[in-house]
């Protein structure tokens, strides 16, 4: 008899598992259809509540009526205490919608207001413009404001899709990793498929690795599909083109491996298939809602933010957005990667304890 090959066995399993996943409606729906529907809906819906973030140029006079009036509108959030360099970056990305610099004119009681808009957020800039114009003609204010100077810097346009897509991608990876892994291992165990495998010379590690290869392969195909649809149909920004895509795929791989750990745990603690969805939802729903999938976690009340910052999906989403839109390299998101790795170690430590073969 010729030498037994573990690699061959592992790939036979990966191939079988991949075929099975591709034919499983729920896997395809969770990995592709849901995220794409959300992208579609949010892509057309645009952002929700309107805020205009206005940065105050360092050195600007703060105790002047113009800024006071801006604060009163309730629509404008003033961003202070950042360096000029920081503000320039934020402005370029459209993270602040405009900069304002107010100075008392030399030898005058009147103020000079200098506004810099950004092409990255032209729509909000226009709203600010009309707000300022209203102020300028406000009777109480008029005598004290001499002039408004306006200019526009050129930034990258940050679209809703640039925020929504990485979040949906993260969600897709989360559900593929958690639900898929949990269901497959539970059902293989319950239908004695794994027991039958044990009667062959295959190693346990081959079973796990084979399944893992198939699951990761499927998740990455899904991720690629979402990125490409997003890019070509919804104008999703990929700063460095293919390099950015590769970086995103690397992050996606790390993410799905971490999330599969949850799946292994759930398959071990669930007694039957009907227990999988509720337990999986305990894992996925909070992350779905709190990890910045739909809204920036900065929009959450401050007591909620620490919870958000504890979840692994938050860091995956964060890293994805940085890589995709800001053109960051993987080294630039090492902090996010580190947190994901720490989560991974913790999850797999638990998974090894609770995972059941029979």
């Amino acid at each position: 008899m010729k030498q037994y090959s573990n690699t061959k066995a592992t790939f036979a399993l990966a191939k079988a598992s991949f075929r099975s996943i591709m034919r499983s409606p729920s896997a395809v729906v969770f990995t592709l259809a849901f995220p794409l529907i959300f992208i579609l809906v949010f892509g057309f819906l645009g952002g929700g509540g309107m805020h205009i973030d206005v940065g105050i140029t360092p050195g600007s006079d703060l105790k002047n009526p113009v800024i006071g009036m801006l604060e009163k509108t309730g629509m404008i959030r003033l961003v202070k205490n950042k360096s000029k360099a920081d503000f320039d970056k934020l402005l370029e990305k459209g993270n602040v919608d405009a900069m304002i610099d107010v100075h008392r004119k030399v030898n005058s009681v009147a103020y000079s207001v200098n506004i810099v808009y950004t092409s990255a957020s032209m729509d909000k800039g226009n709203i600010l413009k009309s707000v300022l114009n209203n102020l300028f003609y406000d009777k109480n204010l008029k005598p004290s404001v001499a002039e408004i100077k306006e200019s526009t810097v050129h930034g990258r346009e940050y679209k809703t899709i640039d925020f929504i897509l990485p979040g949906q991608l993260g969600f897709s990876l989360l559900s593929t990793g958690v639900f898929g892994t949990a269901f497959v291992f539970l059902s293989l165990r319950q239908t004695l498929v794994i027991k039958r495998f044990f009667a062959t010379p295959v190693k346990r590690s081959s079973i796990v690795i084979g399944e893992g290869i198939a699951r990761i392969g499927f998740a990455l195909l899904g991720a690629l599909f979402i990125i490409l649809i997003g890019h070509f149909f919804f104008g999703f920004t990929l700063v460095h083109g293919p390099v950015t895509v590769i970086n995103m795929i690397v992050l996606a791989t790390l993410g799905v491996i971490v999330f599969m750990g949850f799946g292994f745990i759930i398959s071990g603690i669930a007694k039957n298939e009907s227990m999988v969805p509720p337990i999986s939802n305990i894992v996925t729903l909070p992350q779905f809602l709190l990890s910045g999938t739909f809204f920036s976690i900065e929009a959450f009340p401050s007591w909620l933010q620490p919870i958000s910052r504890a979840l692994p999906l938050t860091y995956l989403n964060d890293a994805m957005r940085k890589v995709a839109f800001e053109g960051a390299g993987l080294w630039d998101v090492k902090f996010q990667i580190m947190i994901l790795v720490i989560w991974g170690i913790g999850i797999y430590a638990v998974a090894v304890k609770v995972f059941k073969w029979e």
Partner: protein
Amino acid sequence: METKKAIISVKNLVKQYDDFVAVQNLTFEVYENEIFGLLGPNGAGKTTTLEIIETLREKTSGEIIVDGFSVDKQAQNIKKIIGVQLQAAGYYPNLNLVELLELFAGLYGADVKPMEMLEKVNLQDKAKAKYKGLSGGQKQRFSIATTLINQPKIIFLDEPTTGLDPQARRNLWDLIIEIRDAGTTVVITTHYMDEAEQLCDRVAFVERGQIIALDTPDNLIDQLVNSGFERKKEVKKANLEDVFINLTGKEWRE
């Protein structure tokens, strides 16, 4: 009979669970190239015994040698030379029969053509079907096909005919006899005594985890008759199953 070589030897096998003893001190041998039946009521310990020999379950004590390999130290070698059909086992979801056989070929590291395997069990028409879509008899025949992939020396069949209609059952007997005639040793469990009588070269009766009789079906029957046993009803030259087969035809339906 005495010149036959033992391919499986089980000595003083004990399997103890927390609160009860499933197998108590079993000792028997299976000879090369025979069909060996393990008979007995549910819960007698048949499946447990099989699964210990198949290396799927740990034993409490005792010694088992399968074709010269010890279950304790050479389980991996044993797995390579046996084929196992589990009671009520399922198969990987969403795959058709050819794909399942490819998977098993990979797991065994065997080069086989799935279609040839299907032909062996007369399922070539079902190549693209899913396991779930097969009839009871087809399922069992497919299970047997998966046990033959590594050209095993021994195959284990755990209640392969339970739930089948008479035609499917007879069809499966023919298949099992073919496999034995091709040189494979077959170990089978069953609840049906007519099946054991027709199929098995030797049978062991297991009761409460112990072997209470072991011999050829003929010898066992003779012993009982010699002890003065008589059936209450005169034995006829045919039974009701013969009538059924005669009326509905031997032809096997899907």
